[in-house]
């Protein structure tokens, strides 16, 4: 029997986090120039100025490892005490062979752990986090590592190409040295074909206008409202909110529908600067909020994965959040950049045939 709100999860939460944003950026303006598109219309439509581009030798696995190494360092957790590693991604370097095993080895974890890769479009990272929270709450493991990582795909000249970036972020869940207490979750899932990629296809396909109302908004709004109903909390009880951000417009609209002031969205809204980083999106947004969160501040995270589902999670920052600040913030990482032109971007992302 499920216990009451906040009861079964007492003392459990995020003990540390880390993120990785590749250094290279391409401006949406540059992509629009190549394809002869109206720059103003595209940048205003998406609310995205530029996107982060993974280099030739980077993929979702290297970014997962970099973010996980930082999470271990920032949390102060001994990697040998991590009992589960779950990696959420839709751009795995192998179709079959777990990224999670490489991450576990690279952070110096013990082989005595369980690991797997999760896929649920852009929400697999938060789902990985839910699994870690459950395993820690039940006493199955001491610490769990959940990761959201993607080199977001978009075929040339497709609307997706203007918005999809790359990045990764990791969260370590445990019950000692908690920086953000986990309070509650609510998930909402239906079979909705708004975005997909068949195994042999190189790039995903989106069902155009269908991606908005019946997909993103229906699931995100229902998940948030479900969490409110489950907990009795309201938008005014939250100090920060982060939604999945395929562009900068959708989260703003979701905030408006739910009744959040735009100000509460600001710290976690990273898409305008790095693009839609798919599974890493809401994780990097959450990390940015944790960079500044003060004791007692409440955070709402609502991820979204096409196909479709949304996970809403509520956290409350502790004193430890102020004590265990990482040396590099998300907005510092956003500032460190090197612009590339379209040709260089195409080379790094291997969009040329035979590269």
């Amino acid at each position, binding site marked *: 029997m499920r216990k009451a709100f906040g009861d079964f999860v007492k003392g459990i939460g995020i003990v540390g986090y880390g993120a990785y944003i590749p250094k290279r950026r391409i401006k949406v303006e540059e992509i629009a120039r190549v394809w002869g598109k109206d720059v103003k219309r595209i940048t205003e439509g998406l609310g995205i100025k530029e996107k982060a581009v993974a*280099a030739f030798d980077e993929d979702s696995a290297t970014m997962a490892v970099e973010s996980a190494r930082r999470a271990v360092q920032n949390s102060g957790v001994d990697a040998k005490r991590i009992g589960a590693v779950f990696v959420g991604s839709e751009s795995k370097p192998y179709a079959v062979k777990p990224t999670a095993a490489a991450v576990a080895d690279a952070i110096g974890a013990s082989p005595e752990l369980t690991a797997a890769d999760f896929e649920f479009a852009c929400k697999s990272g938060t789902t990985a986090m839910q699994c870690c929270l459950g395993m820690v709450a039940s006493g199955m493991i001491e610490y769990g590592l959940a990761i959201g990582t993607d080199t977001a795909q978009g075929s040339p000249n497709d609307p997706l190409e203007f918005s999809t970036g790359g990045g990764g972020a990791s969260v370590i869940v445990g019950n000692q040295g908690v920086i953000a207490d986990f309070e509650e979750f609510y998930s909402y899932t239906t079979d909705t074909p708004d975005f997909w990629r068949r195994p042999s296809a190189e790039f995903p396909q989106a069902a155009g206008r269908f991606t908005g109302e019946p997909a993103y908004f229906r699931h995100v709004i229902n998940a948030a409202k479900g969490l409110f109903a489950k907990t009795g909390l309201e938008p005014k009880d939250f100090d920060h909110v982060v939604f999945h951000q395929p562009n900068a417009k959708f989260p703003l609209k979701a905030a408006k529908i739910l009744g959040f002031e735009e100000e509460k969205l600001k710290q976690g809204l990273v898409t305008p600067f790095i693009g839609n980083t798919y599974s890493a999106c809401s994780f990097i947004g959450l990390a940015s909020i944790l960079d500044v969160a003060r004791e007692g501040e409440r955070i709402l995270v609502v991820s979204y994965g096409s196909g479709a589902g949304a996970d809403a999670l509520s956290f409350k920052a502790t004193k430890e959040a102020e004590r265990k600040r990482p040396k590099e913030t998300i907005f510092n990482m956003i500032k460190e950049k090197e612009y590339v032109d379209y040709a260089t971007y195409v080379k790094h992302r291997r969009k040329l045939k035979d590269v």
Partner: protein
Amino acid sequence: MVSPSSSLIWREIPERYGMVGSVCQTCGASYFPQRKVCPKCRRKGKLALQKMPENGRIYAFTEVHSAPRGFENESPYFLAIIELSNGVRVLAQIVDSEKEKVKAGATVEMRFRKIFEAGKEGILAYGYKFKVV
């Protein structure tokens, strides 16, 4: 480049992922890559595994313009001898660093990157590279 076998790639994982080298428990000398015998102590040496520090300085470097097969598309790139903070020297690629910052004495930190792909369908080898910080 002839792709190394998956067993060779697998054997090198502790060194490439975590920079795990050797330390001689008799004389205290550290080695990377790993060694089976301490060249100083010979039979008296007793080697154990030791994780190398992940930061150091550039000792010497070169810019590679004509890369070996398999790395052609990455050139030009910097290859450097890094002196780790414990004095051990390793050869590694420099990434994400502006040209003018790559010089002898520059402080570097380890980064986890893809090293090579064994063809389109083969195994991927990952490991350490360094970035000027």
